[in-house]
């Protein structure tokens, strides 16, 4: 008998269908990955197993966990199962832990709430599981608070809480999506190890096929609340049947063709830039300590060149981006655009500032929800001395919306009427509005589904050909940077450790850090490409 048996599970929330006859099963020691894009119902499937569904959910079908029917079973019975028979790990390690309780208390709580053992034994067990997940008590005492740990370490604590009672089933909902590639590789290793060691079943929810390709025993592909394809990983990747599966597969390895860059002519010059942050003093009269976020960085970005900047979180790429945009003053060095400094005196130079635009990561937070699209995308006009008015302005709006694949009629709509991908198109239209000489893309496609991401990358390639764009593409996603840039720089602890032509760097990385990064990127096996 299977450990988890989901049969014909249908869900609706306040009447809106969410899941439609979903069936899947997991055996002990087996890893089953559920994949699909946002809105496909993969997280809802996981929450249905935990019976932690939002209010107003109506469920039919059956979910059997280790022989118990969990669907619509009484709440106190579910409380006994949760944490003991089934553990769960969530996506956002930064917020998944209670900030005012120590990690020891939080891990012990799983044990104590189920009255599994006395307090002393629970403490010993908490130390054991924390050691098992890579946080030995001699370096990470139980008295630590979550804010004293990094994202990866917090995710380890969450995993420790989930496995403290050795549940038969572990559910991991996008456990590595918020983490850097190297941390992601470590967490995936840990999960794999736990499954073999404890003989647990693992239900892994992910939007990224590559993450599970060399880990899952079975893959379940979901689209709009339905399972469209399922099978043993190897077989499924080799013989994809459903067009949606093929589309997902192709989109995650999507390549675009960029026009060849012209002869180098410097546009942006960054010379020996240093940015220090003053850290709070720990004693009253000691000398203030500085953290060097950007450490003697120099590079040149040529006109019509597409340059990538990669590195893990905290490596200084955001600080460097802000410095280039003139949002922050640097302590040493110079940043020149077209030979003019972005900072004159202690003020940003407006003449230079109007030659740059930026596209941010979050397509939901970067627009004022009370303005219409026409007003949103014409905002950069305030940088110009003589912004276009009247019909010229209307014409410009229509042209830009068309250029990014939207309709000129969209100008009168509000931002909530658009999907994430459309919003990112609007963000690009806003950036292109004043025909800047340089665009900075700060994780601009990281929050998008693979298929939408592929479309946006195609759009960028088209715009490169049409408008001769020069951009700096900042991302932690190496596969995207690989296809969308001509040259790439790798940043580690404030320093550029390697730079060169993108293909050359990816094919033959010289610096050990670059090698580690590229090694850690989950790869889709080549086999699927032929079938697709």
């Amino acid at each position: 008998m299977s450990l988890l048996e989901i049969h014909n599970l249908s869900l609706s929330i306040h009447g809106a269908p969410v899941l439609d006859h979903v069936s899947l099963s997991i055996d002990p020691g087996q890893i089953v990955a559920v994949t699909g894009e946002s809105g496909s119902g993969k997280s809802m499937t996981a929450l249905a197993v935990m019976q932690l569904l939002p209010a107003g959910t109506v469920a039919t079908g059956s979910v059997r966990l280790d022989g118990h029917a969990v669907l619509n079973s009484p709440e106190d019975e579910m409380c006994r199962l949760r944490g003991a028979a089934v553990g769960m790990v969530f996506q956002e390690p930064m917020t998944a832990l209670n900030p005012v309780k120590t990690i020891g208390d939080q891990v012990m709580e799983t044990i104590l709430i189920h009255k599994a053992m006395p307090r002393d034994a629970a403490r010993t067990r908490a130390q054991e599981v924390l050691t098992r997940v890579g946080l030995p008590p001699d370096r990470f005492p139980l008295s630590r608070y979550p804010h004293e740990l990094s994202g990866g370490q917090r995710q380890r604590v969450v995993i420790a809480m989930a496995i403290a009672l050795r549940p038969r089933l572990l559910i991991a909902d996008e456990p590595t999506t918020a983490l850097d590639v190297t941390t992601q590789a470590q967490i995936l290793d840990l999960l794999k190890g736990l499954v073999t060691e404890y003989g647990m079943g693992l239900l892994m929810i992910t939007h990224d096929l590559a993450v599970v390709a060399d880990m899952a025993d079975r893959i379940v592909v979901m689209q709009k609340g339905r399972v469209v394809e399922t099978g043993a990983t190897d077989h499924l990747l080799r013989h994809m049947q459903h067009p949606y599966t093929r589309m997902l597969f192709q989109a995650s390895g999507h390549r675009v063709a960029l026009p060849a860059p012209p002869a180098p002519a410097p546009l942006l010059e960054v010379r020996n830039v240093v940015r220090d942050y003053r850290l709070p003093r720990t004693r009253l009269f000691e000398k203030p300590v500085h953290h060097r976020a950007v450490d003697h960085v120099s590079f040149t970005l040529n006109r019509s060149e597409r340059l990538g900047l990669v590195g893990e979180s905290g490596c200084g790429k955001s600080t460097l981006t802000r410095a280039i945009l003139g949002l922050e003053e640097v302590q040493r060095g110079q940043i020149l655009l077209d030979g003019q400094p972005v900072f004159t005196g202690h003020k940003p130079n407006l003449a230079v500032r109007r030659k740059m635009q930026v596209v941010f990561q979050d397509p939901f937070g970067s627009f004022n929800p009370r303005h219409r699209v026409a007003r949103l995308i014409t905002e950069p006009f305030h940088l110009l001395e003589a912004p276009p008015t009247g019909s010229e302005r209307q014409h410009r709006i229509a042209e830009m919306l068309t250029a990014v694949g939207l309709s000129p009629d969209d100008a009168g709509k509000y931002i909530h009427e658009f999907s994430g991908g459309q919003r990112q198109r609007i963000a690009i239209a806003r950036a292109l509005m004043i025909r800047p000489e340089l665009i900075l893309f700060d994780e601009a496609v990281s929050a998008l589904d693979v298929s939408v991401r592929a479309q946006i990358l195609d759009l960028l390639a088209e715009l490169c050909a049409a408008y001769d764009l020069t951009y700096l593409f900042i991302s932690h996603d190496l596969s995207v940077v690989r296809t969308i840039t001509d040259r790439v720089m790798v940043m580690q602890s404030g320093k550029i450790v390697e730079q060169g032509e993108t293909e050359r760097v990816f094919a033959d990385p010289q610096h050990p850090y670059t090698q580690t990064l590229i090694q850690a990127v989950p790869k889709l096996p080549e086999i699927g490409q032929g079938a697709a």
Partner: protein
Amino acid sequence: MLRYALKRLISLALSLAVASVVIFAVIEVAPGDPASFMLGVNAQPETLAALRAELGLDVSRPQRYLNWVSGMLAGDFGTSYTYRTPVAQMVADRLWVSLPLALYALTLSTLIAFPVGIYAAARRGKPGDLAVMGATQLGIAVPNFWFAMMLVLIFAINLRWFNAGGFAGWDNGLWAGLHSLTLPAIALALPQAAILARVMRSALLDILGEDFMRTARAKGLSRRQALWRHGVRNALIPVLTIIGLQFSFLLAGSIIIEQVFYLPGLGRLVFQAISARDLIVVESVVMLLVFAVITVNFLVDLAYAAVDPRLRSRT
């Protein structure tokens, strides 16, 4: 934690110093000479000069400021212009009414607000929550003196459980004193409790939406366990802020209630002192209130750090 407390303590001392200068300056620019006010318009210049010397008004301003501050530090707040008694004694007598009243009201308001706020948050959108929201809306809208009059009408005039006004004093025992402060404390506490309950509710609702609450449920905690173990402590930060503000208000702002219940409190003392241009009393009481407010803020800061470990390390 110790360093955090020390830092807060230094900032407390600085705030007090700045406040004393500001208060002194404001009182100085206020028109009217206390001496001529006391003696009336027909006073002889010699008498006026003698009185000014007696009151210490004949020296330079910086000197007067220093005299005032050093006096206060030694416990000497000067002599009231109108009553000719030491200000320190007057203020101390009134403080023995106002401080217990404020603490009493704050305790009541907290005791009401916590369970009510938590109850409402746990039943969001359900009849219990709606009832709480309606009742607290009313509690905020109705002025506290109206509550005071209703309380007097019901409990003093009809039921005769309490006196309608006056203060029995602490000499007749703790119970007699508390008994005579009960109705005013309830009248003061009700609107404050209504505000605090709403703050507690909305702070808890914010916390209930946090990821770590879901994590707690995934560990096997029931809704109620998750609320009590992970919710309440996280919701305390905004609640503590409001409690701090409310205490300051209760200490000085209860003048109307003191009037209704005929209590010899600080509020009435200030009111009378202002009417009589008894600036030395006004100065002293205001300084005392500033001291109380700053001290309460210091205590609230310490409470923040006790509740939230992130504040402890960010010194």
